[in-house]
């Protein structure tokens, strides 16, 4: 047996050594990052439902590179399948950048995750399923009880979504890419996926990965932002108890139906997202318990698992090594930071305009990372004043954040193509 044969047996190691230095280092780095994500998910620092499949997918895809046979290599690279053509590096997981129909039909039969990616991920279906699940979990009664305060705070917390757009353009991204990365400020993964798929298909892989990595950090980073921007005296402010307003399920259902119809009429490009969100709300409020258990069980958790797995598998070094990724990493954190600051400024405005009755910390809950940011706000307030309750108002702002992010998604996917 020759040394060459041994290398053929261990193709994973051979392809690693055969890679250019940049790819080799990136593959090793991404394998390590994958392990770190699994660890942080298990420890609860990052969202485990997403990070454990994502981290494992990242490890597997970067470890499992092999020399593809000429036919498969030709399908992946979309080049001619010439006899004796050089074997290309690839995996048997999926080929995200394949565009030609013939190549796609071939790859669908070879790569094991390709059918799920092509039929559920790359067309935004999985984002809509996750959104449907979010809809089932939302109690819009919190918004209906205080619509103006909730929508105002949510809009302030969209500051990053809007302000990052010109910053991204100044940093060299085109309008479509700038709008897609700016959506990270909305702190809503499905919206970022939907916007980047609609506006910047070439960059949707790194944008979505950056978004989901950073969204996991909101739970860890925003408490420091609250402590930095709101003094302890104000953080511990007790809000005067308001008489509980009873919102019936009829009222919530009416709101869901009318809001869905009006928003779809205003932004048909984002209609799949509005429909998915409000069908979740409607099913819950109509008391269709079989549908509720189906959506908040198999649909939501199944979609989240495959979303995490596919995001991890998309993090193959050759796909993710785009010169724009560094810019995206910077802009993603800028967007979330500006949204957090905007939310707290909104909280301060509410505090002053209400005659110093509203706790400014609820502003951060306008960032629509349901229900993480509302829980973060309550936790920070409770640390200063144990019996201060701001959760109902915070949840109102939080749920409104989902609606305002969907509105901004609609505005971006409708208006940005007109600018370009």
């Amino acid at each position, binding site marked *: 047996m020759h040394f060459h044969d041994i290398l053929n047996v261990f193709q994973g190691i051979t392809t690693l050594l055969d890679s250019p230095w940049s790819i080799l280092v990136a593959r090793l780095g991404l394998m390590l990052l994958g392990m770190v994500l699994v660890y942080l998910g298990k420890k609860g620092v990052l969202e485990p439902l997403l990070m454990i499949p994502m981290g494992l997918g990242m490890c597997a895809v970067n470890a499992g590179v092999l020399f593809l046979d000429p036919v498969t290599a030709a399908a992946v690279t979309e080049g001619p399948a010439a006899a004796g053509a050089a074997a290309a590096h690839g995996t048997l997981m999926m080929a995200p950048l394949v565009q030609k129909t013939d190549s796609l039909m071939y790859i669908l039969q070879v790569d094991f995750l390709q059918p799920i990616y092509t039929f559920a991920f790359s067309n935004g279906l999985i984002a809509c399923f996750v959104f449907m699940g979010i809809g089932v979990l939302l109690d819009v009664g919190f918004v209906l009880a205080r619509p103006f305060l909730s*929508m105002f705070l949510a809009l302030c917390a969209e500051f990053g979504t*809007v302000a990052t*757009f*010109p910053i991204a353009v*100044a940093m060299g991204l085109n309008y479509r890419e700038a709008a897609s990365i700016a959506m990270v400020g909305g702190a809503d993964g499905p919206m970022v996926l939907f916007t980047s798929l609609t506006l910047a298909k070439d960059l949707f892989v790194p944008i979505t990965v950056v978004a989901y990595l950073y969204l996991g950090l909101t739970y860890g980073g925003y408490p420091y932002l609250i402590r930095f921007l709101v003094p302890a005296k104000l953080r511990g402010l007790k809000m005067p108890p308001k008489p509980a307003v009873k919102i019936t399920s009829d009222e919530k259902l009416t709101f869901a139906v009318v809001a869905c119809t009006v*928003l779809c009429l205003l932004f048909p490009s984002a209609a799949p997202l509005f429909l998915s969100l409000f069908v979740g709300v409607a099913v819950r409020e109509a008391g269709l318990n079989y549908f509720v258990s189906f959506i908040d069980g198999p649909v939501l958790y199944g979609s989240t698992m495959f979303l995490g797995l596919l995001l991890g598998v998309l993090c193959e070094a050759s796909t993710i090594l785009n010169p724009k990724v560094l810019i995206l990493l910077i802009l993603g954190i800028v967007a979330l930071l500006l949204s957090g600051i905007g939310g707290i400024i909104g909280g301060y405005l509410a505090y002053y305009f209400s005659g110093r009755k509203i706790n400014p910390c609820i502003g951060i809950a306008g960032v629509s990372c349901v229900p993480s940011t509302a829980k973060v706000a309550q936790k920070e307030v409770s640390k200063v004043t144990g019996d201060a309750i701001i959760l109902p108002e915070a949840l109102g702002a939080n749920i409104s954040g989902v609606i305002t992010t969907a*509105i901004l998604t609609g*505005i971006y996917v409708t*208006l940005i193509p007109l*600018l370009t």
Partner: protein
Amino acid sequence: MKTALVSAVTMYALALVISMAVAVMIKGLYAVVRRLTGSK
């Protein structure tokens, strides 16, 4: 860059108008549904 800045401000203003319209709609619907169902 200037176009991007103007567009961002315009889009934020549009989002403000629509969000407040949604809030007004919520209030209006609330009143209508209360009246129709006869609840307080």
